[in-house]
């Protein structure tokens, strides 16, 4: 135990801490969970409540959003989404594609890391 601990530069009895890795976080926005009325409403409410998306003063925007848009839009918007929905995975195409981008990126990055590790040996 003693030797193992000194080899990692931590004192004896130090709890294991995960650290030292680099993460890459790909960010994209905006896809509803499902195409039904309430899922669409929840999605639209979150998206259209964002102050960076709608910069109108709250007192002006709140009634428009809650009384008009969130009553009228979820239905038709859900039908639009229905046309493009990934039915196999039951998710929006944006989610399918973004996940695949992350997986493929992880593959190309880890291939290079392995090649580099191989060449230093």
């Amino acid at each position: 135990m003693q030797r193992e601990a000194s080899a990692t530069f931590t004192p004896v009895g130090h709890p294991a801490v995960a650290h030292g890795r680099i993460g890459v976080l790909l960010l994209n926005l905006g896809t509803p969970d499902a195409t039904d009325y309430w899922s669409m409403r929840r999605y639209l409410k979150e998206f259209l409540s964002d102050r960076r998306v709608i910069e109108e003063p709250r007192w002006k925007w709140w009634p428009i959003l809650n009384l008009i848009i969130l009553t009228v839009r979820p239905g038709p918007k859900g039908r639009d989404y229905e046309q493009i929905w990934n039915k196999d995975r039951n998710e929006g195409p944006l989610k399918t594609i973004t996940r695949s981008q992350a997986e493929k990126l992880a593959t190309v990055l880890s291939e290079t890391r392995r090649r580099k590790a191989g060449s230093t040996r």
Partner: protein
Amino acid sequence: MAQGCDRILIVPLYPQYAAATTATACDQAFRALMDMRWQPAIRVAPPWHDDLGYIDGLAASMRRHLSRLDFEPERIVVTFHGMPQKYLEQGDPYYCQCQKTSRLLRGAFGWSEDRWLTTFQSRFGNDVWLQPYTDETIKRLGREGVRRIALVAPGFSADCLETLEELDVENRGYFMENGGEKFAYLPALNDDPEGIAVIEGVVRRELQGWI
């Protein structure tokens, strides 16, 4: 963090910066950091609207999709998601970055300005948005006797409602109703080899000094 990452590169998947997209995505990430005792070191990738890797990747992807069509378009319409005009006036760099992407892409194709249009889509509400509007442009082209067009939306890293439905279904309809004959929406870079190469290029550059 749970996987032991103490350095994180955040890559908002928007080639052109906009407060409503890039900054919102970063806000969410920063909000998560607020609860952490041991915060990771953070880098944020800058927009890549004028990276040659991005422009070349787009051009290659467009050529590949164009070569599969049974027609040659008379016009290319490069459409970006719109925003209220006043956001531009308040200093959002989005409009200028979109224009630069389109200009560089046109250069890569070697097409003349009169065959290449840059437009803005997805307007809602009564405010004036960035112009020209995509839907109005498409209708006008049909009315003016243009019969074959292709659309591309380089601001979208992945296809979604605004491209697959709004462009490929709705705007296709506008074009056909106004006399158009051939319409093609050229897909986003998505997870195609060109798309992954663009993201990989950005990630490798921004990781310099860390790896």
